[in-house]
């Protein structure tokens, strides 16, 4: 009964201070929303990887693969079967048509181990199904969403829904896979039945095949996409922290305001334990409600961002992610849990102080000045320590996580240092002011600083991250565009159906007027430094020498590559494999390792795998199964449309097989923009959260400030003048914070490009400065502050002298 009364009394406070309740609610909701949204995106993507990895029981069955990770001859499969190995062939690849990209998985249903055929929904069981599956025109099994997406797409076998298949994947007979992928007599891997898992490969095959333990495929996708997900998580966490700043200040304010009430309740005999429990129950109820709202918003955010995330993951890593969210109850519970945890963490200090409130201590005016000085010294000390830790992490840490931790350290240190910095500026200003009203304004700002500092810190963080990410994405885009301009030097690109057609296309182009050079190039796959790498073979031609950028090169590097004496390796491969200029590397090939020197390191932005550049003949020599379908050509730009049209007509090539430079550039930039669409969206959302933080903070403080303004009014200042001073002061504080965010943002950009990017993707970018971004961030900060100042100023201007009078007398 007493408990209910206590709860009622406590709730009464919220009824009177709806704005504070709103601040608490909004803070918790936004903290939960972005965090849950990001978790939903990650969970969905990971579920898709797991689903893809579990396909054909690849998570439970070992596999035989080529040492170099590429295709290997079907004869190897037959040889293993003839040696008594229970293996089943799989041919896997990517099928593209315009924007559409599908993972093709070709199997042989006759030898597929029982464990692997589970989950194929009986698509090739029973006589008629089996024959339809293995005989042209074949039959392709796919998830319902994939089948729906492929309606009207030509060039695919008839589709059949199979509920258990991962998204974007077609399960077909291995014969159909050969037809779709344009390969013949080659395989990607062999699924190994459990009984055969422990065997050693015959000596003649062990040279170019290897047995891979179960689950490697999914693990590889996880590894490749890890940095992407870590990025998302970092954003989610940042928003969570920013949201909690709001909660912390709202909870603190509520405590301060309820201090007299709590003392009265205690004096009336309510035990501290009961009071504490009531406060705890109150915050948990609010947290649950806000958490639910936040989780719902998180779901909406995730659903809105998922297509972009899926496109990014597809474009960057070839990972297929479902286009729709399917979330488990545990995700909802986790959202609520994060909200409650955040609320408890943010209000722990307030709760503790309520618990320990001295019953008889009279309300005494805080010696705030001394307290502030002490606090600022403490904060500065903590900031210095954090900065030191950050430096240590930068110097000693190696992983991506250490990079993010260093960034968190930098941001936190800067946030902690902000109030002392602002305090010093205000002190300085107050010391110089001569007019009493101005002096009062400076001094009053200092007094208000502790209440505002959390919101300002949140704003600083959000602004700095926004600037940093904006600068990073902008720098990357500039670099990437410049790089594309250099790298895409040829005017015409052709991807023929097969090697023979490529030769015919090359001959045709050579005979065509307007074509100045025909440059076929060959491609093979291998594995270097634990990841897939492509080996590209080009002819010696001035086009490459003159246009292609090299980050580092030995003298005569191009000549060495043309002569097959050396290769270029991409920046990320060099970094990952610790490969230096002039070193000798072993490149795995079907015929054994190829030992060759590194004559140069070239940039290859946006490629998660490695790349090796060599002479065309070398690719042909080391990889019998190399992709020989690509032809490039230099041509008079004016003649390009005509040549392309004739080329398409002569060889029956589609627009995705014969295209010009502009088309490649546009496609590459589209992938780039998609990749960063999510980053940019999250970035904007984080800034919005910070704006909300500042707004709610100022609104909640405004009420409390009335009491402090009353004496000034009594001293003769009009409410309108007071309102003007209020507005100017808040906008000035916001502006100062934004100013501090500029260098911090640049530091964040440096951390992102020089530390995080290098560790996540393996490439380093030149950081550029974007004054336009600075201006917009500055403007955004001022606008947010102005908006936040508007309402209190308006209320102040409208407040009757009587109200101020009453506050004045009440507070005394």
């Amino acid at each position, binding site marked *: 009964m007493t408990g209910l009364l206590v709860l009622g009394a406590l709730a009464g406070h919220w009824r009177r201070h709806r704005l504070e309740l709103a601040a608490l609610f909004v803070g918790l909701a936004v903290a939960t929303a972005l965090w849950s949204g990001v978790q939903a995106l990650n969970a969905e993507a990971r579920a898709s990887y797991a689903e893809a990895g579990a396909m054909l029981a690849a998570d439970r069955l070992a596999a035989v693969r080529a040492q170099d990770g590429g295709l290997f001859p079907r004869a190897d499969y037959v040889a293993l079967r*003839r*040696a008594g190995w229970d293996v089943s062939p799989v041919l896997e690849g990517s099928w593209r048509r315009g924007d559409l990209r599908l993972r093709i998985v070709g199997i042989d*249903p*006759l030898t597929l181990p029982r464990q692997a055929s589970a989950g194929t929904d009986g698509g090739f069981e*029973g*006589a008629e199904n089996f024959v339809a599956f293995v*005989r042209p025109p074949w039959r392709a099994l796919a998830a319902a969403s994939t089948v729906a997406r492929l309606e009207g797409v030509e060039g695919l076998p008839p589709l059949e829904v199979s509920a258990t298949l991962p998204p974007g994947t077609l399960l077909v007979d291995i014969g159909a896979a*050969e037809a779709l992928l344009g390969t013949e007599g080659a395989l990607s891997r062999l699924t190994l039945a459990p009984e055969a898992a422990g065997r050693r490969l015959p000596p003649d095959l062990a040279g170019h095949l290897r047995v891979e333990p179960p689950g490697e495929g999914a693990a590889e996708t996880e590894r490749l996409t890890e940095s992407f997900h870590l990025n998302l998580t970092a954003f989610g966490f940042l928003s969570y922290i920013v949201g909690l700043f709001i909660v912390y200040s709202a909870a603190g304010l509520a405590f301060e305001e309820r201090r007299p009430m709590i003392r009265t309740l205690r004096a009336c005999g309510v035990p501290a334990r009961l009071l504490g429990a009531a406060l705890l129950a109150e915050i948990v109820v609010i947290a649950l409600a806000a958490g639910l709202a936040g989780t719902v918003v998180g779901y909406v955010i995730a659903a809105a961002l998922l297509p972009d995330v899926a496109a990014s993951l597809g474009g960057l890593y070839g990972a297929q992610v479902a286009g729709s969210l399917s979330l488990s109850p545990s995700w909802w519970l986790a959202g609520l849990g994060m909200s409650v945890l955040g609320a408890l963490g943010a209000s722990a200090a307030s709760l503790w102080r309520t618990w320990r409130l001295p019953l008889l201590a009279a309300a005494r005016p805080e010696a705030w000045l001394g307290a502030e000085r002490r606090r600022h010294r403490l904060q500065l000390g903590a900031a210095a320590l954090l900065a030191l830790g950050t430096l240590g992490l930068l110097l000693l840490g190696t992983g991506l996580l250490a990079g993010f931790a260093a960034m968190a350290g930098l941001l936190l240190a800067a946030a902690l240092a902000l109030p002392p910095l602002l305090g010093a500026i205000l002190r300085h200003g107050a010391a110089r002011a001569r007019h009493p009203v101005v002096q009062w304004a400076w001094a009053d700002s200092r007094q208000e600083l502790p209440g505002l500092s959390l919101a300002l810190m949140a704003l600083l963080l959000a602004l700095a991250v926004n600037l940093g990410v904006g600068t990073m994405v902008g720098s990357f885009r500039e670099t990437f565009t410049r790089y594309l301009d250099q790298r895409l030097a040829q005017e015409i690109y052709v991807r023929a159906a097969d090697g023979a057609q490529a030769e015919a296309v090359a001959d045709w182009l050579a005979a065509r007027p307007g074509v100045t050079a025909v440059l076929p190039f060959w491609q093979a796959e291998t594995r270097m430094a634990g990841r897939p790498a492509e080996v590209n073979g080009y002819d010696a031609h001035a086009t490459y020498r003159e246009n292609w950028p090299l980050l580092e090169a030995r003298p005569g590097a191009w000549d060495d590559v043309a002569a097959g004496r050396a290769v270029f390796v991409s920046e990320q491969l060099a970094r990952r494999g610790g490969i230096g200029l002039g070193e000798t590397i072993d490149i795995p090939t079907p015929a054994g390792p190829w030992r060759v020197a590194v004559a140069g390191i070239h940039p290859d932005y946006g490629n998660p795998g490695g790349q090796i550049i060599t002479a065309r003949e070398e690719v042909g020599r080391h990889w019998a199964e190399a992709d020989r379908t690509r032809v490039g050509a230099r041509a008079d730009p004016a003649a390009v449309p005509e040549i392309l049209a004739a080329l398409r007509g002569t060889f029956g090539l589609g627009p995705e097989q014969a295209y010009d430079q502009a088309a490649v550039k546009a496609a590459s930039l589209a992938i780039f923009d998609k990749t960063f669409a999510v980053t940019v969206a999250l970035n904007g959302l984080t800034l919005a959260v910070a704006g909300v933080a500042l707004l709610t903070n100022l609104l909640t403080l405004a009420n409390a400030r009335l009491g402090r303004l009353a004496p000034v009014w009594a001293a003769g200042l009009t409410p309108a003048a007071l309102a003007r001073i209020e507005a100017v002061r808040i906008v000035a504080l916001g502006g100062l914070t934004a100013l501090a965010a500029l260098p911090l943002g640049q530091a964040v950009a440096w951390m992102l490009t020089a530390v995080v990017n290098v560790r996540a993707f393996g490439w380093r970018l030149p950081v550029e400065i974007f004054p336009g971004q600075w201006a917009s961030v500055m403007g955004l900060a001022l606008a947010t502050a102005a908006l936040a100042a508007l309402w209190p100023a308006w209320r102040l201007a409208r407040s009757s002298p009587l109200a101020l009078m009453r506050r004045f007398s009440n507070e005394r």
Partner: protein
Amino acid sequence: MSARIWLAALALLAATPAAPQGYAGLATDAEGYAAVTAPARLAFPRDHGPHPAFRIEWWYLTATLEDAEGREWGAQWTLFRQSLAPGPDPGGWESTQVWLAHAAVTGADTHRTAETYARGGIGQAGVTLGPFRAWIDDWEMAAAPAPGDALADITVTAQGADFGYSLHAVTEAPPVPQGEDGFSVKSDVGQASYYYSQPFYRVAGTLEIDGRRIPVTGRGWLDREWSSQPLAAGQEGWDWFSLALDSGARVMLYAMRNADGSAHVSGTWIDAESRPHPLAPGDISMRPVGYSQVAGREIPTAWHLEVPRFELAVDTEPLNAHSWMDTSFAYWEGPIRLSGSHAGRGYLEMTGYD
């Protein structure tokens, strides 16, 4: 239920009418395939090789064996070929041919089986002539050059998870055509196959069970059969006997059982000089006399057989009543012993007891 069940069913049931619902259409539709017509005009070694124009075909060896301690054993090796579509074979993964093989070893108290599948067109399985070689994975039936028939000296190997064998089979006798010079009628409505046997092999070799190697000797029987439309509606299974009498004669008997309880019965008496004497339905009496509970089914594992024309009246007893081929399409197959008018050993295969 995997694809294998269908294939095994199709392969096995192709010779029997016991087509489960849904398989019947496929099993009886022979359009586009070569037809089985009389006369057979068998020619060797040509007909030892595959006949891809026909829908289904098999190479099938059974052996009744004995080890040094006098214990009896049986071994079986079967390679099925099945064509998925008539017409020319494009080869590669698009090959129209699929292959299935069964192997088994039977002792008095053990029965081990293995099964494997392969696509045609890639070299994983196949049959070639000159010299004869039939293979799938690491299982093989390969002929060595020998005077006489191309299959006069063969080595047969198979390897399962828990057993394996290598058997060397030789004979001086020529292949024996079944039915009407190799044209074998399978129903009263005209279903037929080309069918010949080599029932006079002497076998020596080694069984391997759980890593234990057991030298064995005995007699072997090879069956070759191919057809395009061997099924008749309403037939539900068959009982097939191959008997090697101590007198030197060989006997093949089968009954294709109809759902209405009747049966199409046929057989061949092969005298010790390897001359075939086709048996008319009235010449043969086949009657189950003892049943065993096997794999949840009632299976007639003991029979009384009579061929009065050749004064044969014998009872058969299985070496192991649980000779259950637990393959994707399950059936009973194992060695038997004869008693009565003649002594001897043989093999019994029974399908369609569900």
